[in-house]
């Protein structure tokens, strides 16, 4: 059964903490939402309730990291990126402390909490911070591998965690290929195709797969490239997609400024100029509503991705 990414995150953290006594968790009174409750139940002495005070929480985590701990700082993505931005930049990133910042309920699909709780700019903020690695996993299987990988990596990481269940995108080997293994900085092709490439990050890759199905009905073979690491981004995979398929559509659960679309565009203009369209939140704040309604209203549904692909193809004449 497919689990929500936050479930996979919460359970994997407990597994890893059994092996690694240095893992500690800091929470800003959102443990039941972010699923670090599982960690608290298993390792109470390593769980630090910091209250609704995210700025101090980031600094405390940095201090713990100086002592050799591997702190996971868990709060909603909006607070991790906006409220505590200066602490993330200075006490974590500039100091290169080994802090793992977990931004839960990322993007517009954030549990019907409306604009104040929809992180539309967290990736842009984090990507612009030197030394920060940014990861936006696509599903529960990948999340479990990502949590392990970022513990193995020594340095600051921003991890986006989505709240709800989305279709699984990680290749499981059923097509005869190798089962997927996440590697920091590497993209993975989840659908082959040569007419156009849909690049997704986070839960939007599942929307790209659905879009590829829609396009297939029109006789268009769309490649789907999943890009879980937004920084450092997989330059090689993006260049190959541009050279082999000619056109690119990015799809992200984020403002079209500063996130995946920007990262891909930066690579293309420097290495392999190609026709491109960005699907994502179009420079606005969100609102309440169900996930499907939000994706539809804000132009992020599979249908929107498919239409963007068609316009890229049309522009290519």
């Amino acid at each position: 059964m497919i689990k929500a990414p936050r479930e996979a995150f919460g359970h994997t953290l407990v597994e890893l903490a059994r092996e690694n006594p240095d893992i500690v968790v800091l929470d800003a009174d959102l443990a039941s939402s972010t699923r670090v409750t599982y960690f608290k139940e298993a390792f109470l002495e390593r769980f630090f309730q910091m209250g609704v005070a995210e700025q101090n929480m980031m600094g405390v985590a940095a201090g713990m990291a100086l002592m050799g701990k591997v702190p996971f700082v868990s709060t909603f993505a909006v607070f991790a990126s906006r409220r505590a931005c200066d602490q993330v930049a200075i006490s974590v990133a500039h100091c290169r402390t080994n802090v793992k910042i977990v931004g839960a309920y990322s993007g517009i699909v954030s549990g019907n909490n409306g604009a104040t709780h929809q992180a539309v700019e967290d990736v842009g903020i984090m990507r612009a911070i030197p030394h920060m690695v940014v990861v936006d996993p696509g599903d529960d299987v990948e999340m479990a591998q990502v949590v392990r990988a970022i513990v193995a990596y020594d340095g600051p990481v921003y991890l986006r965690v989505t709240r709800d269940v989305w279709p699984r995108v990680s290749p499981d080997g059923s097509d005869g290929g190798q089962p997927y293994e996440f590697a920091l900085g590497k993209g993975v092709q989840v659908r082959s195709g040569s007419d156009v490439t849909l690049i997704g990050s986070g839960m939007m890759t599942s929307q790209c797969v659905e879009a590829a199905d829609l396009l297939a009905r029109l006789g268009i073979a769309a490649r789907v490239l999943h890009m879980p690491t937004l920084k450092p981004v997989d330059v090689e995979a993006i260049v190959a997609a541009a050279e082999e398929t000619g056109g690119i559509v990015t799809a992200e659960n984020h403002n079209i400024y500063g996130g995946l679309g920007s990262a891909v565009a930066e690579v293309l203009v420097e290495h392999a100029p190609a026709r491109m369209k960005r699907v994502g939140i179009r420079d606005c704040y969100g609102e309440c509503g169900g996930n499907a309604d939000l994706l539809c209203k804000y132009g992020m549904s599979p249908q929107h991705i498919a239409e963007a692909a068609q316009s890229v193809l049309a522009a290519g004449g």
Partner: protein
Amino acid sequence: MASLSRQEIHRLEETARRVRCHVVRTVSESRAGHPGGSLSEADILTALYFHVMRVDPERPDWADRDRFVLSKGHGAAGLYAVLAERGFLSTDLLKTFGRIDSTLQVHPDMHMVPGVEISTGALGQGISVALGIALAARLDDGAFHVYCLIGDGENQEGEVWEAAQTAAHYSVDNLTVVLDYNRVQLFGTLDEIMDIAPITDKWRSFGWHVIEIDGHDMQQIIDALESAKQIEGKPCIIVAHTVKGKGVSYMEGKSAWHGKPPDAEQLAQAWADLGCAGRGS
């Protein structure tokens, strides 16, 4: 509390005097840095590094060392002067302060300077980091103590109070904060800019043990630091009444000298005030 010997007091006061000489020369020659707050903190830092803290300049990363966090990172010139006097750095290096390619940034960088635990300069952050060190040390039964110096203007930052409530909530007693209460900030006095009074009441109401001292009286500083370490079950703050620009006649109590280096003539006056000239400091 045992009285310090007259010789020990004299040794510490002489050290602090040399520290102040380094400070005025460093900021004047580099045309950078913050003389006012570096002078007000000089006695406190000297007491910590020369009498109270267990540190070893040969082993700046020694696991059991006491930790010091300069949360008021703009006091870096004072910290570097103390680290140089204590043997963590060469005094020659002070000449590079604030210049391109120097390890001595105007706000201290932990990756560049031995003895600097965490990079600071964005006010309010150091106290949180010091608290994190103290909490982690408790998990590991660490035997050392954590010290943190905050500025009085820094008390205007909300993060300071987030840290204050958290330290009390966790009954953190391996952390001592010292407040450099010189009552002057960048653009004026505290009561002009944003008053923090009644500061002892505020910290006490946050659950801290509060000790109030004259931050230029070596015996009082050391008594306070040693008694703070004995307090069990709650964090302790020493509110040290200080004078901004202490020791330099024309700087004392003046916000103009928060971040302005003295010129050559002013440096000569400062040296005369401090008795630096001809002593090789």
